[in-house]
């Protein structure tokens, strides 16, 4: 299923540098948010273990470490995919746009991914995903028109 959220930003840094800062400095730039918590007792300190299969964790003030999800794709300077709870996944891509880098976050229900290996081997099924993304957009637009 692809109920997904897509947000992007452009910044003055190379993709390699942006990836490095995104992952290494997550504890420095992440802004704790009351509405959205990775773990019940947030906020803590976020960290990525820098390799595929590594953990994305939150460490609380008392030292307790929560595993938020596993890192499914670790491609420095290009792409990062990690689990963020039972049913959702976050994909972050880094692309060169002129002298800047566009960082795009897609947060989606990861059950949607039709094949477990897709996340690891790129998106051969991109058309499938896009179609369902469109389906979702249409549904949301209708919800907006007609109310819940």
């Amino acid at each position, binding site marked *: 299923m692809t109920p997904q959220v897509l*947000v992007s930003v452009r910044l003055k840094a190379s993709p390699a540098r942006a990836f490095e800062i995104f992952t290494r400095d997550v504890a420095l730039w992440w802004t704790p948010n009351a509405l959205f918590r990775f773990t*019940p007792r947030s906020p803590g300190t976020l960290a990525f273990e820098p390799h595929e299969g590594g953990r994305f964790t939150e460490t609380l003030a008392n030292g307790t470490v929560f595993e938020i999800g596993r890192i499914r794709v670790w491609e420095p300077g290009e792409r990062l995919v990690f689990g963020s709870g039972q049913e959702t996944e976050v994909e972050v891509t880094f692309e060169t746009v002129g002298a800047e880098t566009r960082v795009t976050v897609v*947060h989606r*229900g990861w059950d949607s991914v039709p094949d477990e290996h897709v996340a690891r081997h790129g998106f051969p099924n991109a058309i499938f995903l896009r179609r369902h993304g469109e389906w979702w957009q249409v549904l949301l637009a209708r919800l907006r028109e007609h109310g819940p």
Partner: protein
Amino acid sequence: MSQRVAGIDRTLAALADPHRRHVVELLRERPHRAGELAQRTGLALPAMSRHMRQLRECGLVVESHPKFDARVRIYALDPKPMAELKRWLEETEALWSTQLAAFKRHAERVS
């Protein structure tokens, strides 16, 4: 909050299947009888009942029976789980907008 997230996880899991999404789409037009749904989706009745059970369990779909025949099952969409999901999507979008703005500020400061 965590209860809501669990509900959203259930909704996401129920909608993970293309047949169930198709059913939800059909039910957005109007309520349908079980037989009609099987016909329009091309699913065999046993498979259909399995999908309908999952859609009922997560609360997306409600089942009723017409007065004249209790054996006939009519399915309709309950908008509440969809509204929850929509709110989750909006909140998640707001969250990432904030986080990416913070990331950009940090990255440009240290680069």
